[in-house]
């Protein structure tokens, strides 16, 4: 015999289990209900906090999803292909509207305090006149360059021992050649070369215009225009001189050749 001997059917089992509550089972009603009321009161504040937290979380999630979708759409490598962003339905949290009572505060009229107007004296700053310093005019002394008298052909040259009265007729080269051949005994070729035999005594200027005309008039005009400029007159003159020197080199060659032919 065991403890289940009087249970003959399933109804004998489920009958007591479905029966009404026994007084012993409801003995702790007051204590439990007090705990429930306390728990409900403390949960009201937590519920508000949880509700706010849920709202904030919903807003943050919506913002993140929105910005993330926009960023993904803008940074797509294809560019032309539209990116399908899945639409996330955020559950709408209905927040009960709490109407706060309007508290009318009494209007307190504050006395108007007129502050005295303080007029500040106008301070005129003295005008300081700076003295005008007159710089003395320094007159630079005019340096007169000494006039160098070039030796005239025919005159005896003091730098050489060659007697220039015995020059050969013709140009300078013939005299030097004659000395080199020994036609003037006792006279060195160096002295003969330093002599002024056969030299005209004038600086031979190339006849540029006669031998070779300017290729373009614009260049000459440009060079003249540049030379006329006051600021760049030196540079223009140098450029013109360079051009002339270049032209002279060619023209001199031609000129020398012509002279040699003439001679």
């Amino acid at each position, binding site marked *: 015999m065991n403890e289940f001997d009087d249970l003959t059917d399933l109804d004998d089992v489920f009958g007591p*289990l479905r029966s009404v*509550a*026994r007084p012993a089972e409801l003995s702790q009603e007051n204590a439990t209900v007090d*705990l429930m009321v306390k728990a*409900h*009161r403390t949960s009201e504040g937590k*519920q508000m906090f949880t509700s706010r937290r849920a709202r904030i979380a919903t807003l943050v999630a919506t913002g993140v999803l929105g910005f993330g979708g926009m960023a993904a759409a803008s940074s797509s490598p294809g560019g032309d292909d539209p990116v399908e962003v899945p639409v996330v339905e955020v559950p709408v949290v209905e927040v009960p509207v709490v109407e706060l009572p309007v508290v009318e505060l009494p209007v307190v009229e504050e006395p108007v305090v007129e502050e005295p107007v303080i007029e500040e004296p106008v301070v005129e700053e003295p005008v300081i006149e700076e003295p005008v310093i007159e710089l003395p005019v320094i007159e630079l002394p005019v340096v007169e360059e000494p006039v160098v008298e070039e030796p005239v052909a025919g005159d005896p040259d003091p730098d050489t021992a060659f007697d220039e009265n015995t020059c050969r007729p013709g140009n300078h080269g013939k005299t030097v050649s004659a000395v080199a051949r020994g036609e003037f005994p006792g006279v060195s070729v160096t002295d003969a070369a330093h002599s002024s035999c056969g030299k005209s005594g004038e600086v031979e200027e190339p006849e540029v215009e006669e031998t070779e005309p300017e290729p373009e008039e614009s260049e000459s005009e440009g060079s003249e225009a540049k030379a006329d400029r006051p600021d760049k007159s030196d540079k223009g003159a140098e450029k013109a001189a360079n051009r002339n020197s270049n032209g002279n080199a060619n023209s001199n060659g031609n000129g020398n050749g012509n002279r040699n032919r003439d001679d």
Partner: protein
Amino acid sequence: MFRRRSSTLDAARVGDREALAALWRIHQAPLLRYLRSRRTPSPDDVASQVWIDVATSISRFEGDDDDFRRWLFTIAHRRSVDQIRRAVRTSAPRSAFAVRAADHAAGADVEHEDHDALDRAVALLATLPADQAEAVMLRVVNDLTISDVASVMGISEGNVRVLVHRGLTRLRRKLSVTHAPVATMKRVP
């Protein structure tokens, strides 16, 4: 036994003491029996903790009485699981009959007989495997739907049907074995 008490639930949501007490009086006995059938240690303490949880969250609860019962037993199921695990870590749990006998106060003879019948029924149910006893208790005794039982226990509806069927079959077998005549084996010559 269970009727729609939307007005009581509405009052309990806002923290009305009488409404909370009415809910407690209606559901306390089934809750205690359910916990005992699951061999939950200290079922009264666990039941109190379940009611505190209910009061804490009832303002966010939405539904009728059936929904409330499902919600209540879901909380009780989780609390019972926690309590059983805690008891297993500390010491061996006592049997349901011993638990009930220790908590039970002596009274009149009739009441004592009722208590004995109730205790024996709970003890018999507690001999089943825990999941079968819970399924039978929720589905047959407390008359929850299959889907509600599945929701409370966290299993599928098919599994609930199987557990209920096996539990009832095992109970019938126990009862038949208890009341079957003692078989005498004849010695075969």
